[in-house]
């Protein structure tokens, strides 16, 4: 099993699709992940399963990969395993709360994309205002706190952090394409990359809320948790209270606009 632990999860699932199904059973959604470069050891460790559940998961994966091996089955009653409620520290809770506003933008994107497609010309102001929200709030205000502060508390060379950085870069490329499409009046380009951004960020936020943030916090001491809170508070103070308020109002107005039009 040791050699499997150091392989990419995608390679293991490709070799044995049953592994993907087993991971799914344990709430670990690696099978549909487009990247899949996390090591098996990281995938298992990062989810913070209790020792017995982890032992059972490893047993099932080993049996799927090597059906002829004689491996003793760990005794665990899965019906008695209670899912743990995630308790974020205050600084990380703020990051999770910021995701809520970003998810409201993501929820509007299919409607905005259809609106752009069905309009005679691209509503440049609308598209560029959405881009301003993505760049000003989701990227500058939110992602920068992750990149400049939170991610520094763990090994930035770990696969999961590299994937988060890649997601941020891919998101920025989608936004660049949306702007280009709006400038050139290319409706298909705007629609494609708005939807691409939505799909990317939806999965990205889910991974952060449910897996990455709890994993990072498990590695942090109370002293680091306090320091993180002060650093994030200072970053928020440096941009002022007006910026998040402005973007919240933008989302409310956008929701009202499309509620009326539908």
């Amino acid at each position: 099993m040791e050699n499997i632990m150091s392989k990419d999860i995608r390679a293991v699932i490709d070799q044995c699709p049953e592994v993907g199904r087993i991971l799914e059973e344990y709430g670990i959604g690696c099978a549909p992940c487009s990247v899949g470069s996390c090591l098996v050891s990281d995938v298992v460790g990062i989810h913070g399963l209790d020792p017995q559940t982890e032992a059972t998961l490893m047993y099932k994966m080993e049996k799927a990969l090597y059906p002829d091996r004689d491996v003793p089955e760990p005794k665990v009653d899965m019906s008695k395993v209670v899912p743990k409620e995630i308790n974020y520290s205050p600084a990380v809770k703020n990051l999770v709360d910021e995701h809520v506003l970003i998810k409201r933008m993501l929820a509007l994107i299919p409607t905005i994309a259809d609106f752009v497609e069905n309009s005679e010309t691209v509503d440049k102001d609308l598209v560029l205002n959405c881009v301003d929200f993505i760049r000003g709030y989701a990227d500058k205000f939110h992602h920068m706190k992750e990149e400049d502060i939170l991610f520094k508390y763990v090994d930035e060379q770990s696969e999961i952090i590299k994937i988060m950085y890649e997601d941020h870069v891919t998101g920025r490329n989608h936004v660049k394409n949306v702007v280009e499409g709006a400038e050139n009046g290319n409706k298909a380009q705007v629609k494609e990359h708005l939807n691409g951004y939505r799909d990317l960020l939806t999965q990205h936020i889910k991974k952060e809320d449910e897996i990455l943030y709890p994993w990072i916090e498990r590695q942090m001491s109370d002293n680091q948790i306090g320091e993180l809170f002060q650093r994030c508070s200072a970053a928020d103070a440096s941009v002022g209270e007006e910026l998040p308020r402005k973007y919240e109002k933008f989302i409310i107005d956008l929701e009202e606009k499309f509620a009326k039009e539908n």
Partner: protein
Amino acid sequence: MSDCCPGSKTMDFNEDDVQGEDETGARQSQLKQWPIQLHLVSPQAPYFQEKDILLAADCVPFALADFHKDHLKGKSLAIACPKLDSNQEIYVEKITDLIDESKINTLTVMIMQVPCCMGLSQIAKSGADKASRKIPVKQVVVGVEGGQVLSEEWL
């Protein structure tokens, strides 16, 4: 005392249930200050400045065999009993002063699972709410029998 109150209910933990092996050799104390009782400490004391603070209910260290190693290490300490101590409004003020004046980094409140011990978390929360600075406050609940941490949560 009446058996009605879980905080003072008589319980005898059978010796047969005691787990673990006898240990030999001296263990290092992690206490780095004096005094420790919340009425006696000054919030301006140097050992509180910008530190992580542990506010423990009086009974907690007796319930946890590894209190020093697992919980006190690296922290400055204050102890109090929310059931028996008087003038608890001073406790609230001291928590506020610790946060605002001594600029403590975090506050961890350790209480026993008995209901009256929740009063200490309330004191910590009131003191933190009154402070102009904000800091992370954590509550750790310790089981009466078996000496285990039952829950840990950021408030």
